[in-house]
Structures are given as structure tokens and as C-alpha cells.
């Protein structure tokens, strides 16, 4: 084991492998930035090209691509209010408002720094304790995953503060839309209207592209080119990277979000899309300035970005420790191993340790490569804010149409994307928040499947959720989280604490509060 650790490091320093990491990073960043093009898709398409490479070189390329796409998604989220990947949806919340204030460069710098911290944290965990953590995955069956999803649903409460009813409405619509498609346990089509295209349910990415990009394109076009004050145009010279002091401030938030990302990545079936919302929610919970979230607050960018990059390491843990893919991207990576005659399974760390440890080191190095490439690439991207609105708007629509089609090569999905775009416009008009809908769409299918599975396993007894220690604990947290989002909780806390709420949180609560 020890020796593989160093063999892996030596392998990764091979110029071929370093080149592969650099190329993977560049492709990944580009793919992530384009709405509709996903890391999974790019890995699947590039896989045949890597057949002629040495296994470790091919894997280094694909793994760094996967990682870089996580950051790439935030570029479009921050600059265009259109998440490039589902995992970057939460970044829109604070990233876009910050860019609107003329600090696009700084927002991207925060995202890049947070990605680096989250990514490094998860790589170190991956390199050191992956075999131990791999077993943890086996503790998460349908009952436990259901509880995780319930906990996730409670985020709706905190995301819809100010308009709780509208937030809950939005979340409920999301959950309802998630029931479209074949029932996971009976195979009966629901709300599909005999349309084959709907049998598989609504593709979440298609919905997301429509929800975010179409309303944004309409907004830009309606706003026109004229009314642009100087403040909204980001100078490219805008300082990107945070100062030392700011860095120290955002560190606790990044690390907490990184751990959330590793954990969520570890659980099968949940990935960057879920982790970023969890991290955003926790950052808000721990912050003293809750009201500033959603207005371009640095912590609101740091949290989701640290979490979604940390997911990569988390998802790779069960993949390499046990041969169980933790996400769709790692599933395709496993396919890449098989092509080289390496059977994914528990022997990955022993029999094929040299290749595996090279892959793990490659993930670590890819984080650094991402940071370096990111600084150069991002500066160029900020130029987008200089393009007139009436040009950007239609370009977003074109990209969305291409993206929606590319996911399943389906014309139907273009229509679906536009339908969700109209829904997004309606939501905008009536000031209904969109994020709860997104969470409903992400978690709905997981809740649906695991609830039915759990009840089958438990023989129809609902107590199955409370008899299981992990799920009982998670559900208790969910209950707490719900209570915390109600006004009732605030008055209880006040009754217990004489101090004004300003000092009520621990001193480290405000994680990246610097606003220059």
C-alpha cells in the first residue's frame, strides 16, 4: 500500500501524465462552462480516444476533466445567471448579483479559490482514508438515503425566507414535476400522456437550462443595451484572487463545505447538484448576515463551489475502494478502467494499486492545474460582461437549445427546455423563487424511489425510518431544520438568550464576510 502511494506520485509526475492533466482541465473547464454539455458526456465521448494511452494517462485526463467541469459550471452561473452544470445552480444565487455589482472577476476568483480548497481537501481524504470510508457507503441503503433526501428538502424552508408560502409552492411544484415518468417500482407510466419521451421522466438538466437561461435571456433583451451604468461592467483588471485576510476568512466556510461535498459525493445517487445546495444552506445557517445571502455575498459563492469540487473526491471513494460508482461520471470512469482490462472492484487498491494511486494523485494535481488554468481562462471570460445585452441574450438562447438537444439527442427536450423557460418567466413575474423548484426536481426522484424501496424492505411499516439509527438521526436533524426556518424558533431562541442576536452566533460564524 505504502509503496503504491509513492509509485503513484512518481507516475503522475511523468510529463505525459502532467500534459494529460492540463488538457483534461482545459476541456473540462470549457465543457462545464457550456450549459448542457456535461462532464459525464465529455468523459464518455473522450473515452474511446484514451484507449491507445496508458491506463493512468487516460484516467488522469478524464479525472481532471471531471474536476474542472465542476468549476467551469460556475463561470456561466456568475457571468450569465445560467449554470453551466447542475452543480453550479446554487452559485447563481450570489454569484450573479456580485457580478452585477461590477465584481465579476472577484466572484470568479472566490469560486476558483473555493474550488481549490474543496478539491484539495477531498483529494487528501481520497489519498489517505479512502479504503476506510469506502465501507461507509454500504451503510447507506434506501432507508438512509431517503432520510438524506428529506433533510435536503428542508433547505426549501431556508431558501424561501420572506415568501415562505411561495417558496413552498415552488418546492411542491418541483416535487410534482419529478413524479413524471415511469414509477420506479411498478413501471407504470405517470403523467406521461402516452408520450414515450416522458417515460423516463423530465431530464433534470434540461429543466434547469430552461428555468435559468430563458428568463435571463428575456431579461437581458428587455433591459436593452442603453441603460448600462459603469458599475455593471466588470473591468478585466478587476482583482480576482482574494487577499490573504479574505482567504483566512473564507477558509472555515470552504472546509465545512468541502466536508459536506465529500460526504454527499460518497452517498450513491447524490452528487454535486445536491451538495452545493446543502453547503449553501449550511453557510447561511452559520452566518451572522443571513439577510445578505442572495445579494452577492461572498460566502454564498464559496460554499457551493467548495462543495461541488469536493464531491469529485467523495464520489471516487466508493468507486476505487469497492468498485461502486458514486456518480454517473465515475460510472463512466469505471468503464475506462475496464477497457484496459482492469476490473472495477475491491482489488483496485491492491492488484492495480499503481494505476489507482496514479489516478488519485492526478486528482490532487488537477486541482492545482485547475487553479492555474482557471486564472488565465477566467480573465478572458470576464470579457463576456462587456458584450451588449442584446447580443448576449440571443446567444444564451442558442446555447440553451444546443445544450438541451445534446443531452439526449432529442428534439423533444428542446421543447421541454423552452416550456421550463416559460415556467421560469411566470415564476419571475409573480416573484416565486426558483431554487425550491430546482431542489424539488433534484430530490424528488430520490425521495420517490427510496420511499417505495424502504417500504418494500420494511414490509409496509413506516417505523422502518425511525428504527434505523442513521435515518432516525438524519430525520431529527430535518425536523430541527424545519423548526429553525419558522418564526417560532426565533422567538424560542430569543427567550433563552438575553443577548441581542448579533452576538448570538459563535465568533467564527461569518465565514467570508469581507465586502470591500
Amino acid at each position: 500500500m505504502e509503496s503504491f502511494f509513492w509509485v503513484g506520485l512518481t507516475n503522475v509526475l511523468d510529463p505525459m501524465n502532467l500534459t494529460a492533466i492540463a488538457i483534461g482541465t482545459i476541456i473540462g473547464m470549457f465543457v462545464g462552462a457550456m450549459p448542457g454539455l456535461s462532464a459525464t458526456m465529455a468523459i464518455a465521448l473522450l473515452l474511446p480516444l484514451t484507449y491507445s494511452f496508458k491506463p493512468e494517462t487516460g484516467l488522469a485526463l478524464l479525472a481532471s476533466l471531471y474536476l474542472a467541469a465542476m468549476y467551469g459550471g460556475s463561470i456561466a452561473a456568475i457571468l450569465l445567471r445560467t449554470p453551466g452544470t447542475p452543480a453550479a445552480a446554487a452559485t447563481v444565487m450570489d454569484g450573479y448579483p456580485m457580478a452585477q455589482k461590477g465584481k465579476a472577476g472577484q466572484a470568479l476568483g472566490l469560486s476558483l479559490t473555493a474550488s481549490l480548497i474543496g478539491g484539495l481537501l477531498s483529494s487528501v481524504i481520497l489519498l489517505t482514508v479512502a479504503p476506510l470510508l469506502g465501507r461507509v457507503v454500504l451503510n447507506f441503503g434506501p432507508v438512509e438515503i431517503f432520510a438524506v433526501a428529506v433533510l435536503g428538502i428542508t433547505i426549501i424552508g431556508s431558501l424561501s425566507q420572506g415568501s415562505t408560502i411561495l417558496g413552498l409552492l415552488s418546492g411542491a411544484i418541483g416535487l410534482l414535476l419529478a413524479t413524471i415518468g415511469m414509477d420506479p417500482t411498478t413501471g407504470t407510466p405517470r403523467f406521461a400522456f402516452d408520450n414515450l419521451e416522458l417515460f423516463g421522466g423530465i431530464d433534470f438538466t434540461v429543466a434547469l437550462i430552461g428555468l435559468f437561461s430563458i428568463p435571463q435571456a428575456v431579461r437581458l433583451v428587455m433591459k436593452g443595451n442603453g441603460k448600462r451604468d459603469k458599475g455593471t461592467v466588470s473591468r478585466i483588471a478587476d482583482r480576482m484572487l482574494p487577499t490573504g485576510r479574505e482567504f483566512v476568512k473564507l477558509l472555515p466556510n470552504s472546509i465545512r463545505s468541502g466536508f459536506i461535498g465529500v460526504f454527499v459525493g460518497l452517498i450513491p445517487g447524490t452528487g454535486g447538484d445536491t451538495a452545493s445546495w446543502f453547503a449553501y444552506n449550511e453557510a447561511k445557517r452559520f452566518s451572522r448576515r443571513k439577510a445578505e445571502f442572495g445579494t452577492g455575498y461572498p460566502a454564498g459563492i464559496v460554499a457551493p463551489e467548495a462543495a461541488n469540487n469536493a464531491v469529485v473526491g467523495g464520489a471516487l471513494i466508493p468507486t476505487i475502494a469497492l468498485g461502486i460508482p458514486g456518480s454517473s461520471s465515475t460510472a463512466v470512469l469505471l468503464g475506462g478502467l475496464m477497457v484496459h482490462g482492469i476490473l472495477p472492484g475491491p482489488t483496485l487498491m491492491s492488484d492495480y494499486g499503481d494505476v489507482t494511486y496514479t489516478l488519485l494523485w492526478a486528482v490532487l494535481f488537477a486541482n492545482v492545474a485547475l487553479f492555474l488554468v482557471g486564472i488565465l481562462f477566467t480573465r478572458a471570460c470576464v470579457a463576456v460582461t462587456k458584450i451588449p445585452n442584446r447580443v448576449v441574450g440571443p446567444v444564451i438562447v442558442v446555447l440553451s437549445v444546443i445544450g438541451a438537444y445534446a443531452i439526449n439527442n432529442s428534439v423533444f427536450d428542446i421543447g421541454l427546455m423552452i416550456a421550463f423557460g416559460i415556467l421560469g418567466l411566470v415564476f419571475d413575474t409573480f416573484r416565486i423563487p426558483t431554487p425550491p423548484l430546482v431542489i424539488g426536481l433534484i430530490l424528488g426522484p430520490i425521495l420517490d424511489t427510496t420511499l417505495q424501496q424502504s417500504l418494500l424492505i420494511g414490509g409496509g411499516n413506516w417505523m422502518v425510518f425511525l428504527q434505523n439509527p442513521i435515518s432516525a438521526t438524519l430525520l431529527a436533524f430535518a425536523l430541527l431544520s424545519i423548526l429553525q426556518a419558522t418564526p417560532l424558533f426565533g422567538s424560542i431562541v430569543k427567550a433563552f438568550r438575553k443577548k441581542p442576536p448579533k452576538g448570538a452566533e459563535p465568533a467564527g460564524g461569518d465565514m467570508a464576510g469581507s465586502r470591500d
Partner: protein
Amino acid sequence: MKRAFAATLVATTVLVSPVLAQDAKYEAASEINVMQGFKAGGGSDALAQLVQPYLARELGVNFVNQYIPGATGAIAWTRLAKQAPADGSTISITNTPMLQTNYIMNPSITYTIDEITPIANVVTDPGIAVVAADSPFQSFEDFVNAAKEKPSTVTVGNSGVGGDDYFTSLQFERQAGVQLQKVPFQGDGPSWTAAMGGKIDASFTNVGVTYPQIKEGNLRALAVFAEERLPELPDVPTAKELGYDLVAGSSRGYSGPGGLPDEARQQLIEGFQRVMENPDFQAAAKAQALNLDFVFGEDYRAMLKEQEGEFKELWSELQSEGQAQAQ
């Protein structure tokens, strides 16, 4: 300069070699579109990436993969049966049992295997029953006895309603006269993982996906649903030996649209036959633990028809049972 030119020439030749190296043996088209009913990177894609480079060389054609995921492959196969040009330019990877169970279970899916032209089956991943390493079930008999003692309590995972493992469970229930608590998962991975973690009592899944775990001792194999014992698992009995006529698995092959010209079909079949005999191909398949199971032309059609009959019978039986219980 001369050297650079020569290098370019070599590079070009290498690139176009699939077309030039052999005499063109496929006359219907120079490019064959292969529709896949699943996403890139899945099991169908693994087959395509393995077989098509060899087949391209044998036939002197290029293959273009089209991924048309949705409705467990039904969108691609509906297109194959109803819309694809029957001129040999378009074929599809056909996966059983979804190819048949799709339309047996859902009246709104309207294609049938009579509207397609089976060309060749390539791989079959046999079914297997696995339990966690620390499971009380030491043998398949233990499992059957437990299921007999307490009907509807022994939880058995499968890869999803309409998949091979689901229908294997139904067949087993009928033959053994037991009632299992069937738990569908989203694919084989979550199903055997749940068994390994002790979340369910057993999982009916496939050999190819679980073999590394069985070899490492994380999962215990109780029985394989194959005609004969598998060479890689010589100690695991077949269900047949134990008195259950259960031979099941998931197969992947190639089919064309209905009315595919006979010459085109014959040329494709001959291409597959030459690929089958290629030792390089055999080694590549072995490295990926793919269980080759070539069945050609009308034999492939017969295989699909026979399965269709079985699934139809099981499904209608289940439906009428459901109605009887409801009354």
C-alpha cells in the same frame, strides 16, 4: 521536409485504414449508424466500443454511434422499427429483456420484435443470486427455505421492473412456489450494493457486474442462472442442478429495421462471424469480463421470440393475480 511528408502520409493512411485496408465487403452503405437506447458510457456503449472497431475492419465501413436514451431503450427501438431506413445504413443495439418487456408491460409502447430484423447476439451476462458475506444463507436451499417459511418477507433486489432480474424473480417464485418481497433498484449496482451492505436479504443480479466482489469475498454467490456451471465460478451450482428451470441473463446484440435487405444482413452476419473468430477480439472481451454468446440471424430471432413468449406469460399471470387480489 521529405520526412515530414512521409510522416503525414503514414498518419493519413493509419486514419483511413479501416476503409482501405480490406476490400469493401459491406455494399449497402459506407457508414452505418448504430442507434443505442441508452446514454454514452453505459453497457450498450461498452459493447459498441468493443465490437465495432473489429467489425469496421472486417466490413470496410465506419460506424457512427447515435445515443437516443429514454424509456429504457423504447425510444430508440420504436425509431428502429417504425422510422429507420431499411437500406442497411441504420442498425441498433438490442438489449434483452427490455427489448421485449417494454411493449409487453406498457401498451403505449407499440413496436414489437416482429418489426425488426435480428442480426446477431454478441454477449450474455448470466443471472446470479448473491447475498452478503455475513448472510445467514449459506446455500440456495437456505434461501428457498426461508422464503417458504415466511412468505413475502425475504427481500430480494433486482435491477428494475422490466429488467432480466425482475423476471427471473417472477420465474423463480412460480417454480419454487414461494412469494418474495421484490425490491426494484435503479440498475444492478445499487441492487448488489444493498445486498452487500445487508440492506436486503439477497440480490438477483448478473455475473459480470458482481464477479470482482464475489472473488474478493464481499458477496456470496448462491446459484447461477445458466445452463452449465461457469468456468470462473466452478463451485457455484446452477439453479438447474438444484431443480429450478431458471436460465436467465441480459443479452446485447445488434438488429436492423424490419425489411433489412437479405444481402446486407448476410454480410453483417459474416462480419460478426469473422470478428467472433478473431483472437484479439476474444482477448479484449475476456479482459472486460464480457461473456461472449454469439447467436446469428434466424437463431437470434428464435431466441428473442422464445423469451417474448415467456415474459408475456409471466406478465399476464402477474396481472391476473393482481386483479384476483384486488377483488
